[in-house]
């Protein structure tokens, strides 16, 4: 097992700057997720750790080794690819044992390792099949098995679940977590799916446009987003963000209506954005007057889309709620759950 350290890591494709000045520490045995929209550089960063991409600047270390110029085969890391990247001409057993055979592990040990991986991943019946004869989920498990048996000092996952259907995804999520708990291996997991990121990670790294926006535990990111980007990215449905101007401690909207605004570092008259999660808005008689735009029951919660003063917000309530579009509704905000952002810089104004 090993820690990973990145200092000032850059990636350029010619004049194009993909990653700039990434500083990141991954502790031994930690499970972190790199999350962000497509094109944010998260996969590139993962591939640089694996050695599949060159490093344009800065340093990457695994354990105590500076690996910048170390070929992938010597880094002792395993990776699970989005496409699984299985060897089509080898059997499942052959795929799983390929790395061990390369290391000239004795046959008995290989057999034991393959058998135990197959047992864990429920692949016992499939060992003699070829990848072409397997379903997506089975292939995914073979890819996992191939990574597992090597017992590497670092696991890398590149959106391993995005080609699976929703049900299988939830199941595999749990399996990967269980695997990590059992092996305790340092893992870096790339995904564009914030739910996956939230549910799996010890720590989430949110990336945007080649930079780290914020890192922290899932709770920290959810409760204390450092920027408008993180606020909007983490959480589903995402946080309501209402832009306006700060006057006399309240947010003034375009039509002159006002909303409560938390204590913050904002100046009087500054362009600010108010953030509030759907679950912190509820219907309450005598509250803010609004119109129902739509009602979306999800089963657990009910989402109410509302509009007032040209602003659309989503409220999420536990109770059953029915209303036709256009029905007037009165809303109340949990005032201790409000988030304040600088509209210009997108940074939090929390004190």
């Amino acid at each position, binding site marked *: 097992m090993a820690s990973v350290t990145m200092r000032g890591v850059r990636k350029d494709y010619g004049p194009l700057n993909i990653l700039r000045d990434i500083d990141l520490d991954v502790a031994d045995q930690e499970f972190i997720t790199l999350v962000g929209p497509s094109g944010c550089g998260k996969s590139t960063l993962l591939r640089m750790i694996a050695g599949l991409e060159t490093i344009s600047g800065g340093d990457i270390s695994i354990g105590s080794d500076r690996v910048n110029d170390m070929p992938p085969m010597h880094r002792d890391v395993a990776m699970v690819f989005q496409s699984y990247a299985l060897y*089509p001409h080898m059997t499942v057993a052959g795929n799983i044992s*390929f790395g061990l055979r390369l290391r000239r592990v004795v046959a008995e040990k290989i057999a034991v390792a393959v058998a135990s991986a197959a047992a864990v991943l429920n692949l016992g019946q499939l060992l003699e099949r070829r990848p072409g004869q397997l379903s997506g989920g089975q292939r995914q498990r073979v890819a996992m098995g191939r990574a597992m048996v090597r017992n590497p000092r670092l696991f890398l996952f590149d959106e391993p679940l995005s080609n699976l259907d929703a049900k299988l995804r939830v199941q595999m999520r749990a399996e990967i977590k269980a695997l990590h708990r059992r092996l305790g291996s340092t893992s870096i997991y790339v995904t564009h799916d914030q739910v996956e990121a939230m549910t799996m990670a010890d720590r989430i790294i949110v990336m945007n446009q080649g930079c780290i926006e914020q890192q922290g535990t899932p709770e920290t990111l959810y409760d204390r987003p450092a920027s408008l980007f993180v606020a909007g990215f983490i959480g589903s449905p995402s946080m309501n963000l209402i832009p306006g101007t700060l006057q006399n401690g309240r947010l003034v909207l375009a039509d002159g209506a006002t909303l409560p605004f938390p204590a913050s570092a904002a100046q009087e008259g500054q362009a600010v954005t108010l953030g509030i999660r759907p679950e912190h808005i509820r219907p309450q008689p005598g509250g803010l007057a609004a119109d129902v735009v739509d009602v979306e029951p999800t089963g657990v919660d009910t989402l109410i889309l509302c509009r007032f003063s040209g602003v659309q917000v989503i409220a999420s309530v536990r109770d059953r709620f029915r209303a036709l579009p256009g029905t007037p509704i009165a809303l109340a905000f949990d005032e201790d759950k409000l988030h304040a952002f600088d509209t210009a810089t997108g940074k939090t104004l929390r004190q």
Partner: protein
Amino acid sequence: MKGHQRLRWERALDSEAIWPLMAGFGALYLAFFVGYPVIYNLIMSVQQVTLGNISTVFRPFVGLDNYRKLVDDPLFATVFQNTLIFVTGNVALQFLGGLALALFFQAAFPGAAFFRGMILAGWILPPLVIGAVWKWLLASDNGVINYALRGLGIVSGPIYWLSDPATSLIGVTFANVWFGVPFNMILLAAGLAGLPQDMYEAAALDGAGPVRRFFALTLPMLQPTIYALLALTTIYTMRAFDLIWTMTHGGPVDSSNIFPVWSYHLSFELFDFGGGAAVSTMMLVVVFIVALIYVRSVRTERVS
């Protein structure tokens, strides 16, 4: 009106009703363009054929006399051996050369596309031209290759590439390899381009170096392409005629004589049509066996 018609056409082409038509067309094509010449040749090979009776089918039947005469001919052993060396040499060297070039040009260095195109140019030249050019290059006294070898101090005197019975087969093999390498390169390059890149990345992380990746992944993955290529090259090489005819006429002393050259010599120079047909038939049997092995290997590949 027009649109309606097109629609009907497309529907007809999409429907299963057209399958028997397609199969029938295929069978007709086979019978006419493949079956007819093969059978005609086979019949000729068991007959006594002269210019006087060549235009009819009912010619004196001589059984296997033509074949017996061929096998008894002292040339048979020479030509057989030459053909074996020529074909295996060509298949091996064309494949290795094509593979080396395909791998070389896979690296996207500046100008790779241009050079690859230039190499292909060799393939579109007619064999007659290639034969003439190589004959000139391999000339013993003022040939470019001997000049280069002597200039580099590799040899002291000229090598009589084509005029020495010991080397003439090497000379024509060389030229034919040069001719066939671009074809091998293109097919292998297409095969390589079809291999998934991430598989190599996974193997690199699994600890496989470039050599290991080549033998454990590239070669087995290219296997269908390689089988097809080996079969095709064998068949093409079995038919090589123009090049040798231009370069050596099969000489000196039949040292570069192979089956197609012998067949032509028998039929069109000695007017021994039965003998020529018998040689053709023997070649056909070999080609048929190669094709059969190829088809079988493809089928087992698909089943497994």
